[in-house]
């Protein structure tokens, strides 16, 4: 049964995933891989919403729908981000995040 798996397991998994995503965001050099890390973060959040919805408040579908909208927004965000990444690529001739630092201090 599902009840044999405590809710906290899901939360631990999602939290780990979240922080792995954060780790990726902070260490990956390639802008696209950073974007991928962001997707990890969003996914982990979605797991939270879904798990909470299922375990705690199954009468309504708030978490479920939130996850749904997060996915949609993530798609839009990814689209724009990729457009910008490509634009960066065109100007800097690479997409290494450490080299995109002409403005500082």
């Amino acid at each position, binding site marked *: 049964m599902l009840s044999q798996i405590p809710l906290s397991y899901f939360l631990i998994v999602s*939290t780990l995933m979240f*922080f792995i995503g954060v780790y990726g965001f902070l260490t990956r050099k390639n802008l*696209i891989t950073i974007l991928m890390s962001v997707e990890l973060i969003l996914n982990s959040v979605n797991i939270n919403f*879904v798990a909470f919805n299922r375990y705690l408040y199954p009468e309504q579908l708030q978490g479920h*729908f939130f*996850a749904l909208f997060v996915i949609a*927004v993530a798609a839009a965000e990814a689209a*724009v981000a990729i457009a910008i990444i*490509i634009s960066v690529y065109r100007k800097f001739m690479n997409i290494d995040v450490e080299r995109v630092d002409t403005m500082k201090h």
Partner: protein
Amino acid sequence: MSIHEIMFFLFAGMIILFSILTVTSRRILRAATYLLFVLISTSGIYFMLNYQFLAAVQLTLYAGGIVVIIIFSILLTSHINHRFEKIELKKSIFTIIAVAAGAILSISTILSYNFNTKVLVTENPDMQLIGTSLLSYGKNGYVLPFEVISILLLAAMFGSIVIAKKEKSK
């Protein structure tokens, strides 16, 4: 160990494993592939929690859509065989410290909280329910966000166009 448990640990393990691989793999296309696996495993979790619709959306939109455009963009901007340089040790250690601290803090706080788990209703929500909720304008109806997100998508489209648009003849 029930089938649920096996499934859970399988998916959870895959998620963690492939997440780590996603953020550490030195080949970008592989990273994208690992991300795909993560997303698929996540949808597995959704299936397990009996939210088939969401799982399907996850598969199609996320795994199918987003990953595909990511891969496209990779192809546009990177050499497939390109291997990343290793991350500086210092950077990675500092990041790991911060991230681990965050994770420990979060998990310990979560575990300290007493969720009063209700009796699980495990059946898949009715497709019809999802549909009506999405178009309902009462309490627990989501027609407004549904509409607004269309504007968001429209705006995202303009945004992408603006960035990509070339000047007219000079």
